[in-house]
């Protein structure tokens, strides 16, 4: 196949555009200076050590992780049955119903955050963590419904009928026949939702309160006061977590299923 030099140049440009920020962040995190700079001057891992020495990073990291896992878990608990019903009873249900589950992505996050604060924290006087958990679950619900829904749209419901006709009760059939066949969709939904939750600032910002915060908010707060490479080190660590997750996915399922 003939390759166009222009095409190669363009591809290279895109790659640089995508990769350069990552390189800069990792580079800055290794700099032996007390301010952010690139290219790094000197070489040190002390900023990485510093991440774990600053209490606020440790606790918010844990909070973000908990919100990510349990918020996503909660959204899947609601989202999988919703996606199932939307697909199985597509003909009987009104068309607008499926759009309702996409609203959290369509509504500006600031608005979503504000209205959640008004209703959950102020209106219902919920504890901050509970409010954030529900907030994150709502924020990532579209991913749960849509991605699982895409798997279910490709699922032949005759298979479920077949299992039932062979004597398997409907609920058991869902767990033993439907769920194993939409497994990749559920995992993909979990990963997308988890990453969205971990990255979220706007919604969390409205729902945090005294004594509780998430990692992205803490990074912002830290940068307000200090300009040292600790922030770059946290970012590099987040990247590492992402890479590990993706490597795990690649090893078990193959990355292509994310794009399916």
């Amino acid at each position: 196949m003939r390759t166009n030099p222009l095409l190669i140049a363009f591809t290279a440009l895109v790659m640089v555009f995508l990769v350069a920020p990552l390189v800069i962040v990792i580079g800055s995190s290794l700099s032996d200076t007390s301010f952010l700079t690139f290219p790094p001057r000197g070489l040190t891992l002390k900023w990485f050590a510093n991440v774990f020495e600053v209490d606020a990073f440790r606790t918010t990291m844990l909070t973000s992780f908990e919100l990510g896992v349990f918020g996503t878990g909660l959204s899947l608990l609601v989202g999988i049955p919703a996606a199932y019903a939307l697909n199985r009873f597509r003909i009987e249900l009104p068309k607008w119903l499926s759009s309702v589950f996409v609203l959290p992505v369509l509504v500006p996050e600031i608005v979503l955050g504000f209205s959640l604060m008004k209703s959950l924290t102020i209106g219902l006087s919920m504890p901050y963590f509970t409010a954030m958990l529900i907030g994150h679950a709502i924020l990532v619900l579209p991913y749960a419904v849509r991605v699982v829904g895409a798997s279910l749209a490709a699922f032949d419901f005759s298979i479920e009928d077949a299992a039932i006709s062979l004597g398997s009760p409907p609920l058991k059939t869902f767990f033993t026949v439907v769920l194993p066949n939409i497994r990749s969709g559920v995992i993909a939904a979990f990963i997308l939702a988890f990453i969205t939750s971990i990255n979220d600032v706007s919604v969390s910002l409205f729902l945090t309160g005294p004594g509780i915060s998430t990692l992205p908010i803490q990074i912002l707060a830290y940068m307000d006061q200090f300009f040292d490479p600790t922030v770059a080190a946290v970012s590099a660590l987040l990247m590492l977590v992402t890479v590990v997750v993706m490597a795990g996915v690649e090893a078990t399922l193959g990355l292509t299923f994310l794009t399916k």
Partner: protein
Amino acid sequence: MTVSLSLNSVSAHYGNARVLENLSLEVAPGELVSLLGSSGCGKTTTLRLVAGFLKPSSGTIKLGERDLSHLPAHQRDIGIVFQSYALFPHLKVVDNVGFGLRQRGMGAAERQRRAMTMLERVGLTDFAERYPSALSGGQRQRVALARALVIDPGLLMFDEPLSNLDAKLRLDMRVEIRRLQRANGTTALFVTHDQEEAFSISDRVAVMNAGRIEQVDTPETLYTRPGNAFVARFVGYENMIFMRVVSRDGANVVAEIEGGARLGLSQELFGAIPDAFVLAARSEGLAVAVDGDGIPATLGLRTYLGRAYQYRCETPVGELVANGQLVAPLPPGAKAVLVPMPEQCCILAPEAR
């Protein structure tokens, strides 16, 4: 244990739309009955009602002595073969076949043994350890058949099982389904839109239209003596000609068609002919002749069928389709007469026009 299936004035609705109206059907023990009709006639709805996937708005469904009406689908003891095969993609072939046995609490060893025996009967022992995705369409449908049969169900149901297969395979599977169903003596309900398929596989065929059964009979009876115009058209009687008897002489009658033309018909050949009737004729049931006792016609478009020429003919009763012999074909525009051939015609009640 072979049991009968009986549907007693079953009706069903989707929202406000009535899709099934007072449908009654008896399937004798060990009998295979087809529901035949075009899409939307209610045949699949009937199958889903019997399976328990839909609830009838009224009427009862009984399998043997058991009233299925209020039994959930998973307790009905019915094996179903679906158009899409509907195999479990995450289970090996042998576990697909063993699925129903497992639901019945059978131990792993016995399950394996029975599943393998069943796979042997459909000629797929070598594929037991494969996943369905590694099988061809015909093989998948064999697995589906084995899976439905191995639980020894009171009723076997087929929902357009051959539609996804190519023509050659369809014929083989047809024979295979019939052979296994006969050997097991299982009562069966077979849904299809394909007339040839229904006729070749069934003991009796129920022709459905707009949520009702028009006629249930053996394929031979349906083909030669359809009960009404809908069934007649469905089984290939293309021409419907209204006639009135003007005189009778023993077994021979003289009938008149619209426009005044007359022709003689023999009751020995056509059966009893009432004073007013509709003559239903296949295209090969109207022979094109240069002259004689028949319906006067002007020949129109001529098409070659291989075994005959087919003509669209202008007649006093409208356009008719008739076949002419291969030797010395007549040109379009020629005057001719159409002579009814008794073995390809039938006599219907006059309202059947």
